């Protein structure tokens, strides 16, 4: 118990002193996860929109596959991406392994299905009458889709926030593709794992607190948007 209390005390002191190493690690986490979320949103939102609006053979199968990908373990993504970007892989010449770019690629693969599936859910939750109303008022397909997006915006933003929460807390991809290089690819989760291995709990606990702080902020945002969506639905 003393160990835990001491660790917490030291961790707070570390945070209050704005420890350089701590800031670098947090900065790396935010940069990688932020970029991954941005790119995944650019891919996942249109994907979710198209799957919501389009009607084509095999649509259900595609959605089922996306739902299945939600359960994809990060180590599997790490392995697959590793196979492509390792020296022997077809993208080996790009020297991506153990870079932040490699981490971003892996994290994008992790959360594109999350964003797409949650976008589909957000749009499908919008009453069918919105579409019919937009069409009968003379909207073309794109104007109707834009109107639906505006109605579903809180659900869509919640999807992006949830995806960010997913990547900032993941460890498998960061460890396998980033390599946990100090000052370069060391993120909060990989640093915590390392510090734990070393038996140094202070930085691990400090990072854990920061991570939980971010997770709390993300969840607050998520519930805020969910609440807005819920009240709109009424």
């Amino acid at each position, binding site marked *: 118990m003393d160990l835990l209390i001491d660790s917490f005390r030291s961790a707070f002191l570390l945070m209050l002193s704005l420890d350089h190493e701590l800031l670098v690690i947090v900065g790396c986490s935010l940069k990688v996860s932020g970029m991954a979320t941005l790119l995944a949103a650019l891919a996942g939102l249109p994907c979710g929109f198209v799957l919501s609006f389009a009607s084509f053979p095999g649509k259900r199968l595609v959605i089922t596959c996306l739902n299945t990908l939600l359960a994809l373990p990060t180590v599997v993504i790490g392995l697959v991406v590793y196979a492509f970007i390792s020296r022997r892989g077809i993208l080996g010449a790009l020297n991506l392994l153990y870079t932040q770019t490699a981490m971003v690629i892996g994290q994008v693969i992790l959360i594109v299905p999350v964003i797409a599936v949650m976008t589909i859910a957000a749009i499908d939750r919008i*009453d069918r*009458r*919105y579409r*019919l*109303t*937009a*069409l*009968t*008022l*003379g*909207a*073309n*397909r794109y*104007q109707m889709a834009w*109107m639906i997006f*505006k*109605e579903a915006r809180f659900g869509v933003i919640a999807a992006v926030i949830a995806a960010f929460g997913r990547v900032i807390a993941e460890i498998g991809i960061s460890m396998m593709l980033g390599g946990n290089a100090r000052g370069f690819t060391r993120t909060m989760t990989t640093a915590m794992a390392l510090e734990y291995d070393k038996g140094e709990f202070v930085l691990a606990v400090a990072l854990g607190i920061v991570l939980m702080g971010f997770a709390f902020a993300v969840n607050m945002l998520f519930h805020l948007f969910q609440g807005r969506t819920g009240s*709109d639905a009424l």
Partner: protein
Amino acid sequence: MLYELEAVTRVHGRRTVLDIPALSIPDGKIYSLIGPNGAGKTTLLHLLAFLDAPSTGTISFRSVPVRHTEKSLLPLRRQVVLLDQYPILFTGPVWKNLEFGLKIRKIERKKRKSLIEEALAQVGMQDFFYAQASTLSGGETKRVALARALAVRPRVLLCDEPTANVDGENQGVILDILERANREQGIAIVFATHSHSQAQRMSRQTLILKDGRLSDLLRDNVFMATIAGQSENGTVCSLQNGVEIRVPLAGTFASSCRIRLFLNPDHLIVLRESEAEGRDGLLAATVVMIASENGRIRITVDIGLPVHAILSRPEYARSRFTVGGKVFLCIGEKAVLIEEVFPLYRRQTGSVPLISDRSSSNR
């Protein structure tokens, strides 16, 4: 013709929810569409609004066959607006809702504002310009949705039960707005309703749907009859059950001609025995039902067939009718419409009359 439907069906799964061999709807008037739940009213309105495509058959709009492609439908949809039974307003202020259709039509900002104000004034909601849509009551929502539809100046306005779930006061307001839009702006209106009296009040022509098919059996006081005799004083019509009615219309029908006799419930007069003394041409009847309907009183009397009459509340209060009471039915000239029976719709080709046209049949 505004619309011409040819062998139109709409199938959901294995169920045919609409089957209209042929139908024509001329331009510029108000049409009512009557039928019970599940009769296919909404399906038909969606087809007429180009929001759905028929499973088989063709729809022509202004004599041009409709091609159900995105590119072809867009200009048609911009002439026709459907007002849903439970209209939904977009999130945001009322003016934004009305602006949607105008913005899409690339109407400039200043003009948009004046059109929005005009449309809101038309429905008596001018004070709600900046109100949030989510704060409106059911009746207000319907009126704003109606304003949103009228703001784009459509050629056709399709209304799916525009007075459903609306209090009596707002019902009257909505019907007045529709009548005015038709009269002043020339907007053709097709509206679905359960209420026979509303249909009779509003429309010159009535389409009746039952089980997805056009029917002529549902409207109040519509009787299939044959001409049993004619004179200068009137026409004797022979109805079902051996009932004969002399109506004060001098027709020029062929003897034994099949007709459709319509007795307008709004203009039938029900008299107590004391009021009937000394008057000719009255039909003895028994009151079999008294019911309240949209703020008025519907009295059903038995003359060998049930006949409905509509009274205002003050009239009813004065009359003191009771179920089982003996009364007399006075059928004035104003209450009677007769039309020769022609096929309701054709199977293959030929002209397609609507089932009743008060303006044309009132001779």
